[in-house]
């Protein structure tokens, strides 16, 4: 039986009097590749923050590797890329290597130290994101796309079991985006890495993700991506664009 990595039951969240999430239930198992899509303000990032224990739900339950987030302790199992490249301090005085190394801290005991023995993992993450050649560059002097790849390498360096990415491709060019999604798919299929990705690019993610959670404060659709392609919700929400999504997915060999 597959291990349940994340599950929520009737999850609700209110901010003051505003309803942000209502009755959200879903679960993903090891090796799932889940895309969370939905309009702006639909609660996607809030859902991730609740899963990671940054926010307390108003009602309902959430489980991370079978634990309530407040009691969860195996943070080395998680790689996380938040949605805020724009707020990255351009004057932060660190090299690419130093930033990527931060992703290893969840695996460290007390006191946390990065040593020479960690270089292999760092080099692997750098090569995975194709940024080994800029490892000694200053993070603030890189382009937005390069900075994004550094942050993704930081999320991957600890060899996590669950990778959570909040709009990871916003700063990437089309070529970088395709390469990034190919890398993710390889990790998903070869290492059974479980992936949760928030994106607005439903056309592209449709080529890769196995499951879809369409959120608009409540769950509009949750299930296999192929089921979504033939669902009423798809045509309701995407109209003529739905054919484009289906074509994208079929082009990539999902039929």
């Amino acid at each position, binding site marked *: 039986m597959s291990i349940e990595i994340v599950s929520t039951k009737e999850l609700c969240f209110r901010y003051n009097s505003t309803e942000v999430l209502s009755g959200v239930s879903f679960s993903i198992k090891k090796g799932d590749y889940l895309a969370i899509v939905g309009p702006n303000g639909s609660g996607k990032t809030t859902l991730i923050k609740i899963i990671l224990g*940054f926010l307390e739900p108003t009602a309902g339950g959430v489980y991370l590797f079978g634990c309530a987030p407040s009691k969860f302790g195996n*943070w*080395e199992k998680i790689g996380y890329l938040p949605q805020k490249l724009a707020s990255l301090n351009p004057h932060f005085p660190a090299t690419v290597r*130093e930033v990527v190394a931060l*992703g290893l801290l969840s695996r*460290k005991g007390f006191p946390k130290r990065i040593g020479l023995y960690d270089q292999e993992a760092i080099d692997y993450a750098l090569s995975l994101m194709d940024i080994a050649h800029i490892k000694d560059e200053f993070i603030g002097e890189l382009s937005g796309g390069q900075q994004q790849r550094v942050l993704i390498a930081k999320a991957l360096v600890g060899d996590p079991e669950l990778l*959570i990415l909040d709009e990871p491709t916003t700063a990437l060019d089309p070529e970088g985006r395709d390469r990034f999604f190919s890398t993710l798919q390889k990790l998903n299929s070869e290492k059974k890495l479980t992936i949760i990705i928030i994106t607005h690019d439903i056309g592209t993610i449709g080529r890769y993700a196995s499951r879809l959670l369409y959120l608009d404060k409540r769950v509009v659709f949750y299930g296999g991506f192929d089921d979504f392609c033939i669902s009423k919700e798809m045509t309701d929400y995407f109209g003529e664009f739905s054919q484009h999504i289906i074509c994208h997915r079929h082009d990539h060999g999902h039929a």
Partner: protein
Amino acid sequence: MDMLDIFSHGFIQRALITGFFIAVLCSTLGVFLVLRNLSLIGDGLAHVTFGGVALGLFFQTYPIYVALPVVLLSSLGILKLKEKAGIFGDTAIGIISSLGIAIGILIASIAGGLNIDLFSYLFGNILAINKGEMATSIIMSIALMAVIYILYQELVYISFDEESAMASGIKVDRINTLLCLMTALTVVLAMKAVGILLVTALLILPSVSAIQIAKSFRMTLVLSNVLGILSVIMGIIISFFINLPTGATIVLINFIFFVFALFYKNIIRSAGR
């Protein structure tokens, strides 16, 4: 007077030793405060120290015994205002620091005006540090530096990105509280060296100068320490020879370092690209 004769004076020796330890502490802690946009917390807490010192002088006790708990509690107050009342960090600092200054002025007024003791804390006098104060500064600086050394990676990660640090299992709230308490202790320690009004400069300027020049985090810390130590040593020597206030001289030297760092970053390094 021979240049080297200056080092034969006991008060100069005490000032140099104390200044060295305080400079290392301030310039290290300052890097984390600047990168977290908390530069003004030092300023705010220094203002609160004014209130604490005035209170201590009013009750005729050693002012630091009163200022220390007042500043520690105020640092927690700033955090709570920010977290629980949803007030922006700089606003919370502004509220608490104004309160500190107001209490200081009220007490000074009740006591019949600012006396010489209160002035000495406002402007500092590292040359007047006694053996007991030197020993306290050394012990406290070593203890606080040890805490920073142990939590170094956590502090770096939180300075870079709080949210990712939280997803690594780092207890961000606890580290933030500790950082505020350490800043409060550092402000009280550095107060005697450069004075309440100028303590922020010792926290911020070496760090900001180092950030302009350094190309890695470790290099930033080393450079910040070097600039902090140099400014204190040069400030003590120069102020001694040309009879200037030491605290203000230290700050001015730090500002000159900052101008050079900006020049290096914007002119020399840019031209090299």
